[in-house]
């Protein structure tokens, strides 16, 4: 069934483009994870649940106020920055100071359980979708058919990556985030307070979850329990790109999207397995991630 017929070759390009557009969603999720992991070493498994929460915000804004999800995105960003800062202060401030990784891992898991359950209780476990005029429409470009919302999601991902990169490279606090990610001890010796930096990194990470949530809800159907799977995928994307590396995280997400979409074509049903296999191969043979060298220049 996997034989190459002529049509197969014809669709390869489309497959690739679709994988890229689709993977950018993993990428945005992975950037958030990357910031949080880079500074605090926290494997934040609740990122997926936070994204779904952002998705619900977009859904309710649309349903109750008629707000377009991309407009909600703009409003949600400052809100989720605050939420992120508060989460850090409440849940991770103490634990980030411990070097025992289990503690923060479990807090993230506990948070994820709570969020899933709370969303399910408050808003029922029914799947929710936003249906706008442009939902499930596509457009033709260079003979290829692209989804409007996915393309929008991709553009949002690119912009988000660009903004975060700018923040990390141009602002002093952004540089401090990078410094803490690389060497926490040396950072304190130049006068950086790790707590402030951690809080900022966490806030930005959660803001990205808000962004990802809005594009997710604009494109897909959400339910309270989707988050955990998304966290795992984002983790893979992160490892593909290199732990604690923003541009790499986006690239890793896109690569994962391409792998999944490609292997769904050639090995239907094995898409997830291929993703994990790529993840393991990279961990074993290139643990610094696939895109680290490229990032080093600049």
């Amino acid at each position: 069934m996997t034989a190459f017929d002529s049509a197969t070759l014809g669709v390869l390009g489309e497959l690739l483009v679709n994988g890229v557009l689709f993977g950018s969603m993993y990428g945005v999720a992975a950037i958030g994870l990357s910031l949080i992991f880079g500074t605090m070493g926290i494997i934040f498994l609740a990122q997926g649940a936070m994204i779904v929460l952002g998705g619900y915000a977009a859904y309710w804004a649309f349903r109750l106020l008629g707000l377009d999800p991309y407009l909600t995105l703009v409003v949600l960003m400052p809100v989720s920055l605050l939420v992120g800062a508060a989460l850090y202060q409440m849940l991770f401030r103490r634990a980030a100071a411990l070097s025992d990784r289990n503690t923060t891992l479990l807090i993230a898991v506990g948070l994820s359980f709570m969020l899933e359950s709370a969303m399910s209780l408050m808003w029922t476990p029914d799947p929710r979708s936003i249906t706008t005029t442009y939902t499930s429409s596509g457009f033709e470009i260079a003979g290829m058919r692209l989804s409007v919302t996915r393309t929008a999601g991709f553009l949002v991902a690119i912009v988000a990556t660009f903004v975060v990169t700018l923040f990390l490279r141009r602002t002093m606090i952004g540089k401090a985030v990078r410094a803490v990610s690389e060497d926490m001890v040396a950072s304190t010796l130049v006068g950086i307070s790790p707590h402030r930096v951690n809080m900022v990194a966490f806030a930005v990470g959660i803001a990205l979850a808000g962004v990802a949530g809005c594009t997710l809800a604009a494109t897909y159907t959400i339910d309270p329990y989707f988050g955990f799977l998304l966290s795992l995928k984002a983790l893979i994307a992160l490892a593909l790109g290199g732990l604690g590396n923003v541009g790499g995280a986006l690239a890793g997400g896109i690569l994962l999207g391409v792998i999944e979409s490609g292997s769904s074509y050639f090995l239907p049903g094995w898409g997830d397995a291929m993703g994990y296999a790529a993840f393991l191969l990279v961990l074993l043979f290139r643990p610094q991630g696939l895109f680290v060298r490229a990032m080093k220049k600049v």
Partner: protein
Amino acid sequence: MAGNRLYKSAAAAVLALALVPLVPGAVDHYAFFYLFLVFVHIVLAQSWNLVAGYTGQISLAQHAFFGVGGYTTVLIATALMDESGFYFNPLLLLASGLTAALFALAIGYPLLSKLAGDYFALGTLGFGEIIRIGLVKGGAATGGSAGVSMSSEPFETLLPHYLVGLLLAVAATVLVAVLMRSRIGLALMAIREDPVAAAASGVNVLRFKLLAFAIGGFLAGLAGSLYAFYVFSVSPGGFLNLSWTLYPILMCVMGGNGTVLGPVIGAFLMTAVFTAANIWLPGAHPIISGGLIIAVMLFMPEGILRLKAKRAGRQPAKSAAATPPGESSNMQRRQA
């Protein structure tokens, strides 16, 4: 010795637990099932404790070994044994543990020789998922995503499960205790403190890490087998569920990671909390469980046993469990 009294109490507790079935009506009481569940959790928690608590390698694949153990049991039972006459079989239990240990060796070798710390944790997570997908896609051999089931007809009471569970829980705990007093344990702890120094002083780091990982896999496989004997059916959704890794971690960390009795206490308490939340708040219990996990991690991240030790003015049992090598532990602690 500081711990002596604790060990005596533990021995008395084991005796008491062994006598529980003699209490009239006990076997049919829900609490009896609760205890059985605790035993399964103890075995799993000790398996994780051995790998992570003592060698500092955080494994996120214990659910995969649990699942492999369960699948081995049911697959062999349905394939080779007469369905109607079959019940608990020590050989099958052992075979399930060993199969899981083999998987652990196969996974552990590439991972442990290449990765440490978070990368190792992520690697185990990836392998666990691949095993799960392999079972889903296994077709007739593994029953696909529906899994495989055996006849539950031989079941009469929970008593044999209870006794085997108690035996395994005690054996796992004693194994961890004995191992840690042996030269192997010494080597493992040396590795946890400082793998470079351990290697320099002639310890074959990889071999010992692998040994701990394989024994951990063996114990998880036993737990899976025992649970399969109780459920009579295995499926990827039920047995390859990440909660079989996360709960033991929680129990270990709560009770005191890298201590012999910490995971035991953790298993008793956490299972009680989960069960109680499930009984009284069906539908909302993950909120309670999740909140509790967070509260425990925030307010006693070092676990109950260590907390007690501190209160009593004793030095905590060398808290290096919380400070993996290469980390500037003091630095990080002072921010708190």
